[in-house]
């Protein structure tokens, strides 16, 4: 971990702690906008951390961003900071110019380009209603390209995911293309890995928070004259939570380290698949331990558990990566599986 990442994470956590209360998240979930925290982040230029100095950034790398995403997930921060920063990182990686306006990102294939204009119905675009531009993938003459389009004339239908986060349907009708860059298959792979890693970071953050909330609750809540954590069956839940949290955290750290060196296809895939299992266990145990209060809107737990249930279905999911891994196992040239597994570590 770089020194810069430590400072960055500490700084941002302080901002989030102060400005992202349960009420702020509630407001965004009912269609509002968290202008205060968004203003602070964009004014402070934290959002440019991974951009090159020539683009006004701090010359950081993908793992600096992953540190930011982890803490963003941990506080259920209701702003498109992940989307905006990732969109710019990808534009920069394509050799393009990051945008000073706010952009969101969406990497599901389907946009068609004709006559230099983009036409498509793009579903589940995160935060589209709140931003000016979209970075997405398109097929031009059978080649993949990253395109950067304006949402100015797009039709946007308001939709939301299970956590009431904006996931809008965007209709692009001959939209003006601001930038476009053909990409190789390798680059596409890199972008799918970055996109997945970003979501993984966010999910690990939320898992950490659910774990913390639950352990704290077992210490505060008493029944039959003693705190919940003194009951063996509750201890079993704590152990399950701690186990999945430790697995998720180790996966995340190893994935991040691998991304510093390259595409990290294996590590991103394994982490995503692990998190899928972690989410199942963590959300179930956390709700069971919290019991009735945990399923009320009043309590904060659902702001994390609903996000985990929503995020695991978005972008490149565990089932996408399982298929990718099955294919990797099928085509591996190593003489056996163990040789294959240990070739990367």
């Amino acid at each position: 971990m770089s020194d810069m990442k430590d400072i960055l994470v500490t700084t941002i956590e302080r901002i989030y702690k102060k400005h992202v209360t349960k009420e702020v998240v509630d407001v965004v979930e009912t269609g509002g906008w968290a202008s205060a925290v968004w203003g602070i982040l964009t004014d402070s230029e934290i959002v440019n951390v991974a951009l090159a100095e020539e683009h006004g950034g701090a010359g950081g790398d993908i793992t600096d961003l992953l540190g930011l995403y982890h803490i963003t997930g941990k506080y259920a921060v209701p702003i498109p900071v992940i989307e905006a920063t990732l969109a710019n990182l990808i534009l920069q990686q394509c050799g393009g110019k990051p945008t000073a306006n706010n952009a969101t990102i969406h990497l599901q294939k389907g946009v068609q380009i004709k006559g230099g204009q983009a036409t498509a119905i793009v579903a589940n675009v995160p935060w589209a209603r709140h931003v000016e531009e979209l970075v997405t993938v398109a097929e031009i003459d059978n080649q993949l390209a990253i395109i950067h389009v304006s949402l100015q004339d797009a039709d946007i239908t308001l939709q939301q995911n299970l956590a009431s986060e904006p996931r809008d349907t965007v209709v692009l009708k001959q939209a003006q293309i601001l930038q476009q860059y053909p990409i190789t298959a390798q680059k596409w792979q890199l972008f799918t890995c970055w996109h997945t890693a970003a979501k993984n970071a966010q999910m690990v953050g939320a898992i950490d928070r659910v774990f913390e909330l639950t352990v704290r609750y077992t210490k505060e809540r008493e029944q039959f004259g003693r705190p919940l954590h003194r009951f063996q069956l509750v201890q079993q839940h704590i152990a399950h939570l701690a186990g999945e949290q430790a697995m998720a955290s180790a996966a995340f750290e190893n994935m991040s380290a691998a991304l510093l060196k390259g595409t990290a296809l294996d590590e991103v895939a394994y982490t995503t698949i692990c998190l899928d299992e972690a989410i199942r266990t963590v959300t179930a145990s956390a709700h069971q331990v919290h019991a009735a209060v945990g399923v009320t809107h009043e309590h904060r737990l659902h702001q994390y558990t609903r996000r985990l249930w929503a995020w695991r279905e978005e972008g490149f999911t565990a089932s996408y990566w399982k298929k990718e891994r099955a294919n990797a196992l099928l085509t591996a040239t190593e003489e056996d599986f163990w040789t294959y597994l240990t070739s990367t570590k």
Partner: protein
Amino acid sequence: MKLPVVQFTEEQHQFRATVRQFLQQQQAQGTYTTKCDSWLSGSNPAFSKRIGEQGWIGITWPKKYGGAECSALDRYILIEEFLAAGAPVAAHWIADRQTGPLLLRYGTEEQKQTFLPEIIKGTCYFAIGLSEPNSGSDLASISTRAEKVAGGWLVNGSKTWTSNAHDAHYMITLVRTEPFDGTAKHKGLSQLIIDLHAEGVTIKPIRYLTGKPHFNEIFFDNVFVPDNRVVGGLGNGWEQGLAELAFERSGPERILSTLPLLQELIKELKAQQNEVALQEVASLVARLWSLRNLSIGVAQVLAQGGEVAVPAALVKSIGTKFEQSIPEIARLLTATFPRLDAERALDRYMAEAILHGPGFTIRGGTTEVLYGIVAKGVVANE
């Protein structure tokens, strides 16, 4: 807790390749047959001697006792290869993993000089005497006694579930050297090195689910143990034993006991070009990958003297459940007919994995005990 991310060096990858090649040669020569759970149930003194000749026992120990002063991660790689190959390393396993580090930390110079070089040669094996007929998970309630006599101690009592005692020369035995005090039962316990061929020692093998004896009952009838066979401080046995547990619980043997089955399953599914089944296998592989990272991270912290009781308990509790899950998933993905004497490797590994499986989550601390340790540790730290 945050564990370090470990990257193996080029030399370490090379070392892995060397070990792998040796094991492949030995297998090709018919020295051993791959088995699941071979680190505990695959006792083969002749093979252990060969490993000793390679210089691969006690590789982290000081050179003056015959060790190679390699790093803990070098040892991690070495034993991972033993496990992946399903090689019969059980005879020397406990001495290499536990007895050596225990003696290096608490033993006298005479004990180190007597035992370590012999262990390194692959000719001196140790068992661990902990459980008793009335003391399983409640270990501190043990009642085997050692009474002070001239020049040593007289031991009476019994131990049970002691793996490989029938092949071992000595046993690190937890005994009560002071009268039992119900209010402080962890006190007054000591570790003695008992010669298993001494007068008064009786070893009775217990047949396991496989029908084979791999653990034992051991009876002590006025067994004399000289003073110089007390390990560390008198009455300090509980603390010394606890220190060993992190080594015992966090290693790759808590993850890879059924790896030969997973390997064979993947080989079979690849031959079938069964992509759908391999997607299910991908879940196992992802979990294995993450568990390895966790376990290697713990090994690194341990090597630096850090406190890892909770993550070590986590590795064992999750890892052993993972080991158990492999046959359960394998049988849903392809047809098997588990039999210990089957010709087809997949059927044989299935039988071994199923029959050894229940032991994984019991030996070395039951999952229930581990959950208690984890929960208490987590609650105390939060």
